[in-house]
């Protein structure tokens, strides 16, 4: 059974990392290189001590920024302890699958993201073996 631990993970605060990540995603959209944002797959790997609920909230907020509004349809599954997924649809027809589950032996991996636009796509596979080096939301 996977359990949460109280020890702090050995990577920067999740909020700073996720804020920087979300900013980067939004920049990719506003740069105009992928056309209209249409679908987001957000698949987070939550460290022991982390919160599934918080993780979903970060993903949903990122999608709201990407699509520019609140979703008109949300359906949620899973449990609130180990894993959960939100299926969300926006008025424009854009949609997202936002999931969170245990990171297990890969702490600090963070979310994997696929953002598909009408004429391009953005892929983010997380830190892939390295450790995140963004120490605060303002770091460049």
């Amino acid at each position: 059974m996977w359990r949460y631990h109280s020890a702090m993970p050995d990577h920067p605060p999740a909020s700073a990392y996720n804020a920087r990540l979300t900013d980067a995603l939004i920049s990719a959209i506003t740069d105009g290189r992928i056309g209209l944002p249409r679908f987001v797959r957000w698949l987070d790997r939550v460290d022991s001590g982390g919160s599934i609920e918080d993780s979903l909230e970060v993903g949903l907020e990122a999608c709201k920024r990407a699509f520019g509004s609140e979703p008109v349809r949300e359906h949620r599954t899973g449990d609130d302890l180990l894993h959960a997924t939100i299926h969300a649809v926006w008025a424009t027809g854009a949609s997202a699958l936002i999931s969170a589950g245990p990171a297990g032996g890969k702490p600090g991996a963070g979310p994997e993201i696929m953002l598909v636009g009408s004429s391009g796509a953005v892929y983010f596979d997380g830190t892939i073996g390295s450790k995140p080096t963004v120490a605060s939301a303002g770091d460049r």
Partner: protein
Amino acid sequence: MRSLGVLCVGGLQTHQENHAAGFDADQRSHIVAVADEVDIDDRRRALNIRLAEQYDVPYIEGIEKALALPGIDIVSMCADVERRHRVVAACAAAGKIMYLDKPLAANAGRASEVLQAITKSNVTSQMYSFVHTAWAKAAKECVESGRMGKLLSVHADILFAKGPGGTVTGNTPRRETAEPTKFTFVESKREFFDLGVYPIGLCLWLADAEPETVSAVTGNYFFDQHVQNDTEDFGAVMMEFAGGVVATATGGRIGWNSHLAGGPHRITIVGELGTERFDAWEPRLEVYSTAESPKLPPPHPQDPMGMWRSTQQAAGIPRKTTYTPLADETRWYGDDITAFMDCLEKGSEPVMTAARALGPSKVVSAAYRSAASGYPEPV
């Protein structure tokens, strides 16, 4: 094992291009003839005849007439999906071994008819799927090994980076039909119906269960051709299983420029002990150089989405060069047919039998209902 005779139903510009090549390459099988129903349009008939000419075998008009030929053991089924159920039923009733294109039929009801016919005749069957790819088998091994602990969720994406994307002009929601009836067009096809069956099939196989409820959406995100034909180019579905397991799947066509290889082909297994990812393009080399990058040529008029091998070659669609995966994705069709022939040789049951293939059809039908209603729907 003697070489088994294969009757190919359907011809060029169907998956029969790949299936026939697989049976022709396997020493345990040989192609006897190509056939189809009598009452088909001239374009389909001409494409069927061209496949028969390619393998130097006769083209037979009429399924009953073709089934009466001597030396036919296997039927490789690629009849248009709108009429596939009745052609499968006729072939199964004749006692032929069935190698089936995906999906089984146009909807869950007709897929059930296909399964009933195959069950009644007690013939061996296999539907083409991705379960024999190296990355899918690695995901299955992960689940069965128990190293992730209890399975919590499965996420699968099979998106094809093919076709000239970015032509859609609107930013409006798609109005889906609860029970689609028309799937086959030259310019486009229903991509969630046709491609969604891959990731959904993987999810059900990995979870070893069928879901109870689905929430889904379909979209016209990328291609104007799909808008014009009222066919979706994308779909996403969330599936809830008894016991709390959740699966999600995306299937669609996202455009040639939206991925450095064939498109996102990925499975993520989430267990109580962690998360593992299995990607068709990993491990890979990534090659960057001053050499000119391949570019998508003007679309083939008979296949603007780049669906078929023959028209891809005719249009000169180049192979993308940045990703060089260590696995050979060009072997996927051949590997599936090799696995099928292995089962026939050993007398073992294929993995993706018609019985197992019914599940994805049930999910796709429920997903269309959910996309149309805007609410979760029972499977």
